Every structure is written in C-alpha cells, then in structure tokens.
C-alpha cells in the first residue's frame, strides 16, 4: 500500500514537472496544434471536399492530421529529455520504470488532447461535418491513448538512434494502423450511422489496453542504462 502511494506521488511529480516545462517552453503543443490545423487545410485541397464526399473523407483527414501531429510532438517530449541528460538523472532516482512510462504517457496524451480540443471544433466548422457530439469524446480519448502508448515507447527508441526523431514515424505508423482504422471508422459512424457496423469503440478500447500493456512491460528495456 505504501509503495503504491509512493509510486503515485512519483508519477504526479514527473507529470507536473513535464507540464511545467512544457507550459514555460511551449515547444510541443503550439507546433503540434498549428501542424494539425495546416494538415486539415492541405487535405481540403488534396481531396477537394464537396458536400457529397466530405462525410466519408473528413474523418480520415482528421485522424491523419492527429496521427502526424502526435508523432511530431511525441518525438520532442522525450528527445529534449535525452538531449539534456535529464533522463539519465531520472533513471538514477529510485523510481520504477513503469511509473516513468505511465507519467510520460499521461503527459503526451494530455498534450494531444489539448490540441484536439482546439482542432476538432475548427474541423467541424471549416469542413461542416457534425462531429461536435458527446459521442466523439470516448473515440478521441481511446484513439489518442492507443497512438500515444505506441508513440511514447518508440519515441524513446528513436531518440537513441543515429536517425533521431526521423525514425519515430517509421516505427510507429505500421504498428498503429489498426488504431487508425478503428478510430476513423468510429468517427465515420458518428457522422453517418451504418447499420450492422463492427463494434469499433470496443476495438479501440481493446487496442488501447493491449498497447498500453506492451508499452508498460517493455519500456524498461528501452531506457535501461
């Protein structure tokens, strides 16, 4: 019980430190948010969204924008930590590796959710797609958790290679394709309900649980020193 309380304290300490650093430096979420907005504008021209196809193309454009923006941001949160050597010091502290992973994951999920909270209303207005319903909340939360769980793990991997952040999307994208499929389909079903559709939300939940477990179990081997 005491050790659980201790872990929780350590967890919050890391999360609060990351948020404080991010609020002061504004390295991640400003660039991430602006990137998501730009991606949505570029997609509009790439697909020439008109009234008849926007319901089927819009959700895809939204999730690709989130996926790209997430990987862009995740690379920075761990890259900066490794550059300044603060990760080494964090590893020297008597903290469980799982606690570090969960803290980094929560920090990243919150960064992405903030970006989405701004981007989704803009998307709904400029694409004229009715996604601003309560039903979008679990889809976005679970989809983001799934992407961030894999993204956080492989951001830590790629930051330690010669290729640096350039490798992160190459490792993350193939693994999160199922999450993207489920998230896009769930969002589509929200805009245009389909009879007899697969239970995409359940699938998103299952993916999130599996990916978070894999990340928590293997993160210790990535940051080991």
């Amino acid at each position, binding site marked *: 019980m005491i050790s659980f309380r201790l872990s929780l304290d350590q967890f919050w300490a890391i999360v609060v430190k990351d948020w404080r650093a991010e609020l002061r430096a504004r390295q991640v979420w400003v660039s991430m948010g602006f990137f998501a907005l730009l991606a949505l504008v570029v997609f509009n021209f790439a697909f020439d969204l008109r009234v008849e196809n926007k319901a089927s193309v819009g959700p895809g454009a939204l999730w690709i924008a989130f996926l790209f923006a997430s990987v862009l941001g995740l690379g920075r949160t761990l890259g900066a930590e490794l550059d300044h050597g603060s990760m080494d010091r964090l590893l020297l502290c008597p903290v469980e590796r799982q606690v570090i992973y969960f803290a980094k994951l929560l920090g990243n999920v919150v960064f992405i959710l903030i970006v989405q909270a701004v981007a989704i209303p803009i998307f709904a207005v400029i694409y004229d797609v009715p996604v601003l319903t309560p039903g979008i909340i679990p889809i976005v939360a679970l989809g983001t958790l799934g992407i961030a769980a894999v993204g956080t793990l492989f951001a830590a991997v790629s930051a330690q*290679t*010669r290729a640096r952040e350039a490798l992160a999307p*190459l490792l993350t994208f*193939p693994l999160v394709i199922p999450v993207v499929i489920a998230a896009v389909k769930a969002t589509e079903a929200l805009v245009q309900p389909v009879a007899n559709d697969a239970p995409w939300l359940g*699938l998103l939940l299952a993916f999130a649980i599996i990916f978070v477990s894999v990340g928590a179990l*293997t993160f210790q081997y990535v940051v080991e020193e």
Partner: protein
Amino acid sequence: MKTLDQPHTTTAATEKAQRARWLLYGEIALGVGALILMPIAIWAALAYAPTDAVQGDVQRIIYLHVPLAILPYVAFFVVFVASILYLWRRDQRWDTLAYASAEVGVVFTTLMLVTGMLWGQGFWGRPWDWADPRLTTTFILWLIYVSYLLLRFYTGRSESGARMAAVLGIAGFIDVPIVHFAVTWWRSVHPDTNYLVDNGSSALPPAATFALLVSFAAFTLLYVLLTIQVYRSLTLRRAALELRARAEDAAGES
C-alpha cells in the same frame, strides 16, 4: 584424454570448434536437401499437378505462394521468441538469431507479396485488392518488419540497439493478429469480401497435395539454411570488428 593441468580455455576452444563443424555439416545437408527438392517442387507445380478447372494455369503459382505465406509467420515467431529470450538471458546469440530470422522473413514476405500479386493479376485481373484482408495484413506485416530492419540499421551493432530491436520484435508480433482483426472488420460490411474463399474445391487432388508438400519442404529447408547463413555471417562480422578493435588498441599502446 583430458588432464587436470590442461588449461581450461583449450577444452572450451575445442568444444567451440566442434560446434562450428556440426553447424557446417548441418548447413551442407540443408543445402543439398534444398538443391534436390527445389527442382522437384518446381516440376511438380508446373507439370505434375493437374490444371485447375476454374483458375487455369494461374493457380500453379499457389504451390509456391502458400509455403511462402506460411514461413514468414514462422520466421517472425522465431524473432518474437528470440527477442524475449534475449531480454531475459542477455545472450548475444539470441539477438543474432532474431536479426537473422527477421532478415530472411522479410525476403520471404516480399516473395509472398510478389507471387500473390502475380496470381491476382491472372485471376482477379488486377494485382492488388484492399478488400482482401490477408493481402492487406501481409503488407502491414511487411512494413512492420522492414521498420525492424531499419531500426537495426540505424542503431548499428550496439547493446542498446539489440534491446530496442527486441522490444520492436515483441511488439510487432503482438500487433499481427490485431492488424488482421482491424483490416478484416474494416471491409466486412462490403458484400464483395468473400471472393477469395475457395470455390468449393476443398479436396485437393493427390498430385496437387504432393506439389504443395514438396514445395513446402523445399522452402522450409531454404529458410533454415538462409537463417543459419545470415546468423553465421553476422557472428563472423562481429568477431572481425572485435579483432580489429583489439588490434587498434594494441597499436595505440605500443
């Protein structure tokens, strides 16, 4: 006859040489076996097996395609198990095995995709169809293990690189059934998904079964042989690098 005053390293070296010799014999046996079986497999696929009533001669590529489709799963399962064993035991040999098996697995997956696309061109009239979940899953599988090789390329031969590759080797294999689920459901609402299902001819004629089995045996031997070859070349390369580093150290000291 071993005596007590004999240095310990000599027996270890002898054992190592013995192991290397057995590995060499094994490789020769596998090579000869593959060399004999491969022409038989090609002959059986092209001439011995009967022409398919529905698909015609295009179906003959299936005799190569099916073994090529099963072996990558074996190869990537070997990567998965060897990665777990490496993280547990920290024995460099498991890491080398994972690397070798991944490399051969990617080559086989590429061949599977190519033969599958040739068959698709002949039977569907187009090489690719996103509606076929097996094709899509295989393509994503290929992407995952190409990214595994890229990671190994960018980390070089370091201990941390081996650890991170093992993490990807584990996560990638766990991802395979998940990908299959997602892409199957992705298209399941469309009515045209069922057209790869066997057209009723579930009982293969004996000649076709023979062609399939010989081909499977030939490719299995080839997989094991290639994996051992890559394993050995990786081990030799590491030994050469270590020797060079030691030589440079010695030159620096004198």
